[in-house]
């Protein structure tokens, strides 16, 4: 195991300069919150929809390099895609995190940089938190969740 597999340049770069860091107004956007109580990470993810199209995603929060970079990469991967495409990407990413030997799907694109966490089981939760939170924000859109009580996702 090499640390450089985990902390690839893409990860370090997105940690230092997170993309789409900020907030969206609710409504029209939808929000969910994520927390990793073990390490104290907290995350807020906003998603803006136009029908089936994800037009914008933003996030805010405190966390380790893996969780910040994963959230940042995720926003880039989601914006401008349909919900179905985002869902497919979620599943690909999830598969990478949870299957040690799964071959990397070329459709992952830049997200393949996250694959290093597979060798660091204690860190998978850091990487997956943002994705679960985005999922919850999309579910909130379906459920017409009141803005005052965004759903909260917790990793344990």
């Amino acid at each position, binding site marked *: *195991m090499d*640390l450089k597999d*985990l*902390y690839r340049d893409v990860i*370090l770069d997105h940690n230092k300069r997170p993309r789409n860091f900020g907030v969206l107004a609710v409504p029209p956007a939808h929000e969910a919150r994520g927390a990793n109580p*073990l*390490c*104290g*990470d*907290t995350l807020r993810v906003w998603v803006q929809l136009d029908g089936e199209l994800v037009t914008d995603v933003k996030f805010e929060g*405190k*966390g*380790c*390099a*893996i969780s910040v970079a994963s959230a940042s990469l995720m926003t880039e991967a989601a914006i401008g895609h349909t919900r179905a495409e985002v869902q497919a990407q979620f599943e690909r990413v999830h598969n990478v995190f949870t299957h040690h030997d799964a071959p990397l799907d070329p459709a992952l694109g830049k997200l393949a940089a996250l694959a290093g966490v597979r060798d*660091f089981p*204690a*860190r998978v939760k*850091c990487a997956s938190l943002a994705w679960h939170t985005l999922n919850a924000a999309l579910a909130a859109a379906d459920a017409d969740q009141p803005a005052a009580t965004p759903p909260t996702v917790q990793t344990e």
Partner: protein
Amino acid sequence: MAGHTGVAVTASTAANAQPFSAAEVAALRADFPILHQQVNGKPLAYLDNGASAQHPRSVIDAEADYYRHDHSNIHRGVHTLSQRATDAFEAARHKLQRFINARSEREVILTRGTTESINLIAQAWGRSFLQPGDEILVSRLEHHANLVPWQIVACQTGAVVRPIPITLDGEVDFQGFLDLLTPRTRVLALSHVSNSLGTINPIEKFIAVARERGILTVIDGAQAVPHMAVDVQALGCDFYAFSGHKLFGPTGTGVLYGREALLEAMPPWMGGGDMILEVRFEGTTFNTLPHKFEAGTPNIAGFIGLGAAVDYVQRIGLARIAATEEALLHYATAQLLAVPGLRIIGTAPHKAAVISFVVDGIHPHDLGTILDQEGVAVRTGHHCAMPVMEFFDVPATARASFAFYNTPAEIDQLVGALQHARELFC
């Protein structure tokens, strides 16, 4: 007995105690099999003793020997093995009583750990004696184990929990405590040594004030007992709780010391076997102390191991342990402060060998992974002390916590690993 060290032990008092020499530390390390391994291709530097300490061979052997030769249930059989097991278990209690200088074995309740000890007090004492509006003072420095049980019993009784502030260097604020006292103050819950920052609180003066006013004093000694001689009579507290596994003993063992009169006045907490004298459907009479608070089959082997751990630390000497750890603390503090961007959280004048720190631009969780790759085990996170993290406005810290078997070379390994992390990140 296995696990002899090559260290010549002389009686030493705290004042004149010398740190162990490098040769003595090497001999002591030989008693701890787990320390001699590679982690991620590097020699293990175990600097997470505050979370759980490692076991000398004599402790491991005491447990294994018990299972090989003497195991049976205790207090309930006339056969030979049961008698042997009972004797060994009660011998461990006796060692623990002497270790903390309790007046008698009736004052030494054996529990699963600090957490259970404090829950026992909160439930058995608190539910009986707390009234709505009574005030429980809990320091902001406490481990969640000395906070959450009080929140629970406050909900159950209508009592209220009030936080005692801490100072910027991470000590419980004595004046802040005095300012909080009211005629309704009933409980003071205070740690002897903070697990998150290492602060040694001057608990004697808090206890003196509390006693004068009839306030129950509950001291969390989990981080103190492994590192300094503790005399509960000299401290004068009502309750003192600690865990075996931080004292080089097995997990699932702990102690609750309580003043006998208080324990007598408290109803049992858990009911079941061992804690009764006579059971009828019309009514049950409870066993005498300490058994009244020990329902069910305990961790017999664990306490026999803990007895061996007490023997071990007494043989090598708590005063020398303390002197050795203090030297490690000074060395580590100086070395860590030389790392650019590193900030130590918790700078009280009196500290145990615990250093909590953050490094600019690197989240503690990332530090934990990088250090682990270098063979260095530290704890990262909130250390079960979220109010402390909130006070210092950090989400988490990295924490190195030392034992007498750690070496300056391991501290150098930690510092080298931190430099490595900085190269990667900064």
